[in-house]
């Protein structure tokens, strides 16, 4: 077929696709289902025309027009993820729990590292209290020597509104950074896990040394149980990201990377709202001396159980091995 004949036979189709794409861009809802089907058919025909023109008539204006139309059609009509409408309910009941199930091995690793570094911090604080107190700073140590925890400052020096918003944004930032640290081959995530574990262990050791451990536990129980869980889950998501970057097994890297990245993203997104709840608890419940230790423990356990019930949704467990696709659909 020569170029003139090719254009004569196919130009109408190209014009129709161009007009259809224009309409789709301007008034997407004005197209009926059948019109969309026709548009998709024309798009595929134009793609093939483009392939033919690129091979047989390179460098011509027609080939350039077909390349442009193909790109425009691809952008307007192709969705590689087969996106469905976003559903919060589906995310909460299926997408997040499934991704969480697949993350459990990485969560085990994060927990082991955290406990290990925590025990090391506790051990160091026990045998070398002077070294461990350097983590706290002289002012806090002075507070401890006066029989006072630095956590009381949360209510005495800062208005609750500022404290809660500051805590929420700080913890959200820590969670995102921990997850994102997976992109540094896991180095930053590892650092966050080890540092937090060591820091908590050392704090416990120092407060034990000053006989203030009960007060510290009373302060952290309401928010700390879930907060640590969430940081560990974010760390596990970061490790999963790192694993996908470093080792993809026998699958193409882009596929393995995409799946792991999405799974870890779903888990991170499922964790973030809890940090806002925890910030309120940490500001209004944890430092309040009028609330008993038992009540604070009950709040902490209730929050942890609520999160676990959400994350370990048994309905999602059965299909946990299937990869989640983008857009929240599992």
């Amino acid at each position, binding site marked *: 077929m020569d170029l003139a004949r090719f254009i004569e036979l196919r130009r109408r189709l190209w014009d129709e696709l161009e007009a259809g794409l224009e309409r789709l861009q301007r008034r997407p809802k004005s197209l009926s289902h059948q019109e969309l089907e026709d548009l998709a058919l024309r798009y595929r025909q134009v793609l093939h025309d483009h392939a033919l023109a690129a091979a047989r008539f390179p460098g011509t204006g027609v080939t350039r027009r077909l390349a442009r139309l193909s790109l425009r059609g691809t952008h307007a009509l192709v969705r590689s993820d087969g996106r469905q409408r976003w559903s919060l309910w589906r995310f909460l009941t299926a997408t997040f729990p499934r991704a969480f199930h697949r993350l459990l091995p990485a969560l085990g690793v994060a927990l082991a590292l955290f406990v290990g570094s925590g025990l090391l911090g506790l051990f160091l604080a026990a045998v070398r209290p002077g070294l461990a107190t350097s983590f706290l700073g002289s002012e806090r140590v002075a507070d401890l020597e006066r029989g006072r925890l630095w956590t009381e400052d949360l209510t005495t020096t800062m208005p609750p509104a500022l404290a809660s918003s500051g805590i929420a944004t700080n913890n959200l930032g820590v969670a995102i950074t921990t997850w994102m640290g997976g992109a540094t081959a896991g180095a930053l995530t590892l650092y966050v896990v080890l540092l937090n574990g060591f820091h908590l262990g050392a704090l416990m050791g120092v407060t034990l040394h000053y006989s203030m451990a009960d007060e510290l536990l009373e302060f952290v129980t309401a928010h700390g149980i879930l907060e640590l869980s969430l940081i560990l889950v974010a760390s596990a998501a970061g490790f999963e990201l790192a694993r996908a970057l470093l080792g993809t097994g026998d699958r193409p890297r882009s596929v393995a990377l*995409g799946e792991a990245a999405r799974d870890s993203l779903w888990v991170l997104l499922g964790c973030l709202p809890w940090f806002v709840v925890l910030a309120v608890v940490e500001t209004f419940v944890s430092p309040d001396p009028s609330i008993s230790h038992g009540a604070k423990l009950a709040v902490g356990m209730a929050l942890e159980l609520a999160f676990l019930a959400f994350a370990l949704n048994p309905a999602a467990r059965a299909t946990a091995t299937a990869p989640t696709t983008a857009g929240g659909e599992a």
Partner: protein
Amino acid sequence: METTERNVVLGLDNIRLDLPVAGVGSRVLAAAIDSVLVVLLVAGWALIALLALPETLGDWRIAIFVLGYFVLDQGYYAVSEITTRGRTVGKRAVGLRVVARDGGTASPASLLLRNLLRQVDILVGVFLMALDPLSRRLGDRLGGTLVVHEETGGSEVTLGRIPPGWTAREVALAEAFFARTEELDLDQTLFIARLFNRWLVRDAPDLLTGTEPGRDPLGALGQALLPHRENAASGAAS
């Protein structure tokens, strides 16, 4: 259209698509524009929080500002890319857009992923983009996205009539000539137009009917080969 760096990806039915992948320079420029916009948005938000919210809220006004600042800082890029199908204000200004690896529309999850990794990419992104033939930063690799130049197109010259027997080579030559007539000096233009007219006399004399190739070689050539719109423009130029 030919000025951008192009890279091939396989689209639907494994058909090659030449994506005009955006390079480091244009992407950094777009990011700089967006960064300025984020600063302006934060400043506007601060004014709203401090001046427009009722004073009875007390310290909660600052708390609302802090939370809003966090959302703007972390969410501007992702939300604007998701709602505009890959075009933030900065990208729109520079003529860029984010697409999926196959050239299609990137999913919200992909856009969210690439933007949550922005802080890591501030450190290593430019380096990675410089090394990658598709100019992908880490967020692009994990999100499965590319940043491409918007296809504006439509301005290239295409022949309206093709003489019988002309192959793609002659057609491309004639289109390139029409596209460059304004860059050539008059003598060169007329010389080349006469050459084309000789081919037309040989291959398709009918196309020159009603024209005066001897007196106005460029006008005659345009009238013979170009669609009406380009023909009129060419005639005016000559």
